[in-house]
């Protein structure tokens, strides 16, 4: 692509991203009373993040075992109450070490 085409691609991507992120928040002004919709929206983030984590985490690693080790270590650390950054670092270090095997 030429430099101009890349700029256009970036701006189109940015416009679509902004629309997707901002429209529901801007348009839905009232509190939703419907119990199903409230429950649905409550579960959405957990499902989305879980689906994006597995099996992608295993596939991103050098070999599946290293990915599984990083997943187990990260999940255990999070279970024990470690925050975002410590869990991320633990996952990286475990992947690196297990990847050496």
């Amino acid at each position, binding site marked *: 692509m030429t430099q101009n085409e890349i700029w256009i691609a970036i701006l189109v991507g940015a416009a679509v991203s902004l629309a997707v992120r901002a429209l529901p928040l801007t348009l839905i002004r009232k509190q939703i009373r419907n119990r199903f919709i*409230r429950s649905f929206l409550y*579960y959405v983030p957990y499902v989305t993040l879980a689906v994006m984590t597995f099996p992608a985490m295993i596939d*991103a690693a050098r070999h599946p075992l290293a990915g599984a080790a*990083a997943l187990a270590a*990260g999940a255990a650390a999070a*279970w024990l109450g470690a925050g975002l*950054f410590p869990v991320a670092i633990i996952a990286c270090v475990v992947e690196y070490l297990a990847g050496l095997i």
Partner: protein
Amino acid sequence: MNNRNRESKRLMIRNGLRDGLPIGLGYFAVAFSLGITARGAGVSPLQGWVASILNHASAGEYALYALIGARAAVWEIAAVIFVTNMRYLLMSAALSQRVSPDAGAGKRLVTGFCITDEIFGLAVARPGYVSCTYLWTAFILADLMWAGGTLCGILAGNVLPAEVVIALSVAIYGMFLAIIIPPARKNRVVAGVVTVSFLLSFGADRLLPSLSSGTRTVVLTVVIAAAAALLFPLKDEETGGEQA
């Protein structure tokens, strides 16, 4: 603005910086590996920085750079970014219930722009209405580090050994775990939902490899969250900011 308001605003900024920094550090590592992809697609450092400031989405940006590298048509880029970022539609709808009804359209638009998986995680981790000042502060810090990581990846990506780049690429999944595991520990239904999501995601990935990861995320999110909402609807006290 009276003193108390100013004080609470300052506290929200301080909390935003505190919670935005670890997110930003993780972002830096992930964006660094994204920068390496961008470099391969012929994206300049300035273009990568601007794209990251504006898009700030790992899957969406990865798709963007891959499509630029593949010389895809503009409409294709728009469609793929829409699908890879579709989960933000759902998060944005969820967040609409957590922002005070007094907030105007401009404030809501800016808050929507700030949505990322982790910023959304911060918002849902607190009970009641979320402070926009808090979210914006955390977002600005994290977004600058995200764009800085992309920039450094484009400039210096080939300096790091491949094993280190791969290890860094796991960082984002560690952050996702840190968001979903603690609530799963507290709430059995959430734990079940996370487990089912893992299993179905794995099954869909292995059995339907032609389905893109973005589409899989959207379809499974809608199906599993709807099933959970039908089987285990929330009791009123579980809804955080919703009660009058």
